[in-house]
């Protein structure tokens, strides 16, 4: 007798922003998991209470925008402690942040700023990832940034930097597929080559977010892609997502939408599309593998 093994995809989740929080708690929509930015909850006890309630019903992923592992002045330990307190309360299944920096001498610049990829930065970021993983008491996933510029002083490319970071710290990677496409477009490299070069065994999560094409002021007829997270995911990013799934296999995938928020139903439809893409790519491979 041949058993028919049922394919079980790793279903997609959606980013949960404060304007949707009360609705989501009240209606408990059919989605597999949510990802939150801790910075939205740390100074908001009411929202934090609702999040704690939600965490009893859904797996939660915590994605920080403020830990700033790339700051030369060090990680903001006060902020890290607050993030840890939230994490201990809701016990997320993933905790992640960005290969970027945001703080400088006590100022928070409210952006994910680029780094030169050289040995000094690698030593510093690796030390900070170690500190974050120890401080949080769990693995930390580092996300590839959305890039508009590069650094003349870089001595390695981004994937080489991330791969070495994984080797030095044991951290995992969050592959933002939209960022790979956007950065490749903006800086002139092939997104598929970037995906091929990533250490597949270290990939713990995928992100998909919307970006906006603007005319490049400096280059007539050319466009620059802006990481707005304010619209549906572009078809080119969906195509790259399918490619990434073939390379990485099934991974928790997040739909990110941070600005000009649509109805919750729109986010859910994007998550359903991610699930459909994953099923179309992965189920035949799975059935072949199990015979």
């Amino acid at each position, binding site marked *: 007798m041949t058993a028919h093994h049922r394919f079980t995809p790793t279903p997609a989740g959606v980013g949960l922003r404060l304007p949707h929080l009360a609705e989501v708690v009240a209606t408990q929509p059919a989605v597999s998991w949510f990802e939150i930015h801790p910075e939205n909850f740390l*100074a908001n006890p009411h929202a934090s*209470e609702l999040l704690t309630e939600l965490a009893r019903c859904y797996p939660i992923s915590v994605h920080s925008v403020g830990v700033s592992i790339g700051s030369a*002045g060090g990680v903001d330990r006060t902020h890290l402690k607050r993030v840890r307190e939230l994490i201990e309360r809701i016990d997320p299944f993933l905790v992640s942040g960005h290969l970027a920096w945001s703080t*400088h001498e006590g100022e928070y610049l409210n952006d994910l700023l680029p780094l030169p990829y050289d040995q000094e930065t690698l030593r510093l970021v690796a030390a900070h990832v170690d500190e974050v993983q120890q401080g949080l008491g769990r693995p930390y996933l580092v996300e590839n940034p959305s890039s*508009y510029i590069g650094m*003349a002083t870089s001595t390695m490319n981004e994937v080489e930097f991330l791969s070495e970071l994984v080797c030095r710290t044991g951290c995992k990677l969050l592959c933002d597929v939209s960022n790979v496409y956007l950065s490749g477009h903006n800086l002139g490299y092939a997104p598929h080559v970037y995906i091929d070069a990533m250490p597949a065994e270290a990939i713990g999560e995928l992100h998909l977010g919307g970006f906006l094409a603007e005319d490049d002021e400096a280059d007539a007829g050319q466009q620059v892609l802006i990481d707005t997270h304010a619209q549906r995911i572009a078809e080119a990013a969906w195509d790259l997502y399918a490619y990434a799934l073939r390379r990485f296999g099934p991974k928790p995938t997040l739909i990110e939408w941070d600005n000009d928020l649509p109805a919750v139903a729109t986010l859910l439809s994007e998550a359903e599309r991610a699930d459909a893409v994953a099923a179309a790519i992965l189920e035949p491979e799975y059935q072949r593998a199990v015979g």
Partner: protein
Amino acid sequence: MPLADFQAQVRGAIVDGKVAPLTAVLTGGAEPLKRFAIHQRHYEASLVRALVEKFPAVVWLAGSPFVTAAAAAFIRLSPPSAPCIAEYGEGFPAYLAGRAEAQHLPWLRWVGELEWQLGHAALALEQAPLSIEALAKVAPERLADCALTLQPGLHYLAAPWPVDALVKLFLSDSAPESYALDPEHVFLEVRGARGAFSMTRLDAATFIFHRALAQGLSVGGAAENALDADPAFDAGQGLVQLIAAGLATAIGGADKDPQQ
């Protein structure tokens, strides 16, 4: 270039607009500095939006162009100090009031101060109130030395203009053809929890009593402050009324644990 120096240059470019030092460092696109301007625009747009959204009554009263321009200047003088943007902007009302364009709006700062407090009160969680019975268990001779813990969503604002009336007008979404606002000292107790808030005018002595307790003064110390303002203030009655309104959550002294 050391990373710290590079980041200082980026900070200078984003906050102060000094991009020249980055010219030799950046790559990407036909003109990398124009690409870098995406980060400069994001810093300004995201923080200005955050400030404008925090002070909607100020915008309603003073106009969006003025408040937006003031916010764009404020974020360069006073960048955030922490990643929780909900905590950013406490100094904006005072800055706004110092702008030349606001000199004919002497009440504007106080509208902003009140909005700041309302916004934060609404994020709080109300705790179980201290009961009169729990208060009665404290030995009378020790009561003056005890301190109270008040509800987290309580805030106190003394303002030289009746700005609560302006904010209530804003909240009611009604704009009269004309509105006369005369100077008047008001003592406001803001109370909020779980998305809701209220404003109550107190007499000066009661305001001082409540605010002092919120600041951690002992019952006796708070009463002394209130009596300085009004020798007729009845501290005992004031304390009972405060407990009855559910404003306190715990009582304790230096030598004993708080009682719920």
